[in-house]
């Protein structure tokens, strides 16, 4: 009995010793992440495989709300308290906090070859060589329509080359016939407005490459948005119900069939496939046209390594694994995200869906990539683009609810951009 007790104790001590040894040898990497759909689950599955192959590295996935990525993460990073890796969307704005992975990855040429055009979105002005991360998804903004409502109302959907006015008119007609509360809804986001504004002729930058938000093209698009809110084509609940640059989406209203046409982007596909399914035909349509182009805005989320990491080698190892064609193919396929990997984009991804609506949407957005305006790419890569987006959205919102006239709003947009960029140049 006594011997057995001794033996048990000895085994317990040995087990504790082993556990302590493992704990000492293990490197913990923290990855800050947000979810649009199921990508967190997919990523966790991939990380489990990585951990199984690399027992000395543990990766903790800290899932936070998207708002925390926009507002809390920058403060954390400025304080030097950030995670090792993060999924971000303000690609250029946070670039000063990114780690250059080049010394820690096995094949920088592979990264250049497959992520080349997107790597420059992650670089500081003047930097032409650093590698900091890869796109977990490439996104393209564009509209969805509730095709079933069009069919029920017996209104023909505008065809290829249709303008925003054509779509606004048709959506209003459907809503009026079927008593749908919101004919057209746009996410309350400057990024969403930028594509249509460029289609209307907005240049976004002056001849010296400096930001020039307000021009005739932007005024044209902003005036349309303003008018649609006044005539009931768009509901004020989104653009008029909150202040400043707060984001509001109409995805839930669209999923509940309360919206005829919804301007958002490709990232909604997995969510709509999941929440709407076959309840009605949700149909992605090509970006409506203006006099200058028929473009949406590119964008997306990037997984970036951060300077705050104390384990750059392990981060490099993990990023190598995650960016491999095989792993990314699995990730894009399961999440229904448009690939931000050129090799996979040309070979095609085996998307894990049989939903014809999701397949159609993926095809619509993927085929929109070549027609994206170069101005849109430049704007997406510009480090202060959110300053421009925020000024646009907050001042236009104030005009829509009647606090400012449109002309006052345009003046304020210009002032806001100038003031904020001047503040940033002063030190930051």
């Amino acid at each position: 009995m006594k011997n057995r007790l001794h033996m048990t104790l000895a085994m317990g001590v040995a087990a504790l010793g082993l556990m302590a040894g493992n704990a000492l040898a293990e490197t913990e990497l923290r990855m800050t992440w947000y979810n649009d759909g199921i990508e967190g689950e997919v990523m966790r599955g991939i990380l489990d495989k990585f951990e199984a192959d690399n027992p000395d590295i543990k990766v903790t996935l800290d899932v936070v709300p998207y708002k925390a990525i926009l507002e809390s993460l920058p403060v954390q990073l400025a304080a030097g308290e950030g995670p090792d890796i993060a999924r971000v969307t303000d690609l250029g704005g946070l670039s000063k906090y990114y780690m250059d992975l080049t010394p820690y990855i096995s094949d920088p040429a592979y990264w250049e070859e497959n992520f080349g055009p997107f790597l420059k979105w992650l670089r500081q002005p003047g930097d032409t060589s650093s590698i900091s991360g890869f796109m977990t998804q490439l996104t393209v903004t564009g509209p969805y329509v509730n095709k079933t409502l069009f069919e029920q109302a017996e209104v023909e959907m505008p065809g290829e080359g249709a303008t925003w006015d054509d779509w606004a008119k048709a959506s209003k007609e459907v809503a009026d016939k079927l008593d749908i509360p919101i004919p057209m809804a746009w996410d309350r986001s400057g990024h969403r407005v930028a594509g249509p504004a460029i289609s209307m002729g907005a240049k976004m930058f002056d001849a010296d490459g400096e930001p020039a938000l307000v021009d005739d093209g932007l005024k044209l698009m902003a005036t349309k948005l303003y008018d649609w809110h006044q005539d009931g084509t768009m509901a004020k609940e989104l653009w008029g119900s909150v202040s400043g640059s707060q984001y509001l989406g109409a995805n839930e209203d669209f999923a509940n069939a309360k919206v005829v046409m919804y301007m958002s982007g490709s990232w909604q596909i997995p969510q709509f496939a999941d929440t709407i399914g076959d309840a009605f035909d949700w149909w992605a349509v090509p970006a409506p046209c203006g006099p200058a182009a028929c473009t949406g805005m590119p964008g997306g989320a990037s997984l970036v390594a951060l300077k705050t990491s104390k384990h750059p080698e392990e981060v490099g190892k993990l990023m190598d694994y995650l960016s491999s064609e095989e792993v990314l193919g699995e990730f894009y396929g399961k999440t229904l995200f448009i690939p931000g990997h050129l090799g996979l984009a040309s070979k095609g991804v085996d998307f894990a869906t049989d939903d014809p609506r999701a397949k159609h949407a993926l095809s619509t957005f993927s085929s929109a990539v070549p027609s994206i305006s170069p101005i849109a790419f430049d704007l997406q890569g510009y480090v202060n683009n959110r300053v421009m987006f925020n000024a646009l959205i907050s001042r236009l919102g104030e005009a829509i609810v009647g606090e400012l006239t449109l002309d006052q709003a345009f003046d304020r947009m210009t002032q806001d951009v100038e003031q904020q960029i001047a503040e940033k140049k002063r030190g930051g």
Partner: protein
Amino acid sequence: MALEDTTRSKSDSGPSLLNAIAAWPVRVLFTILDVPLRGLQRLLGIRAMPYVFILPNLAFFGLFVVVPLFINFAFSVTGGTNLYLDDRPFVGLEQYGFLFDCGNYLDPTTCREDRFWRGVFNTFTFVFFQVSLIVLFSLITALILNREIRGRGFFRAAFFFPVLLSPVVVALIWKWILLRDGVLNAFLVSMGLDPVLYFVSPTWSMFWAIFVSVWAHMGFYTLILLAGLQAIPPDLYEAAEMDGTKRERVFFRITLPLLWPNMLVVIVLALIKAVQIFDEVFVLTGGGPGTATQFIVQYIYTTGFSNQVQNFGLAAAASVVLGVVLFVLTLLQLAASRRKDEA
């Protein structure tokens, strides 16, 4: 009788034993502390001992209130977007100049930082209505709850209950009620009426911001007034009744004057709290529509944290301005408390 005595002595010995057990760790602690404290008293003298006792609290207060105040002021005279003061350029009073650069202070559109001034005007409107209504409804409720009504205990608890809820929970509950598909609109539709989009209208948004805030906080102030009402000697009312004094005269000549010190505390406390309004309205209306319910604290938060260019200097300057307002209100509260003590 003998049986009764035995029972009493048994039941008395239980709590006293429990008390003795509970007091034991305290006694041990005092015994341990006694030696160093006596030594300290010998060293510093008995006059310094009160300061020794308040030192831990003072240290916390200094660390978490006074030091941040100075840091905040230091931020307000710097510019740029760097987080650490060492990296931030000194700009003097430029941030204050930017905030106060107005063509006409009564017209925010003429101000360089129009949103700050809209925040000021919105806060002023909110404070005026919210404080007036909270004092009025708290007084009425306290007067009713002070009477011998059926279910008085239940109603006292019911009116106090919202005070216990987190402001975010309060706002989410009311948002759920007030949205397009909310409970209130469902009720209106069931009555054959059109739904009302409350958060699209500036007037409705301000109304609900004030209403929800009054609903959430009036229980606390009711309690203060109820305590004041119960402290009024009943013989004054009896004397008035014997004299056949009218009810209104009793209220204005006895109740209100004797309750006034409590009222003053309520007014000042409600004022301070109302000026600081942020969380519940931010969740309820998001500051909208436009900037119709954006108050000063939200302006500070947005400027300092939610814009891409985080303008800590400007946010800190606005905080200092708000701090000055709160300081004045706190002085008022201190004066009111002193008056109450004297009364």
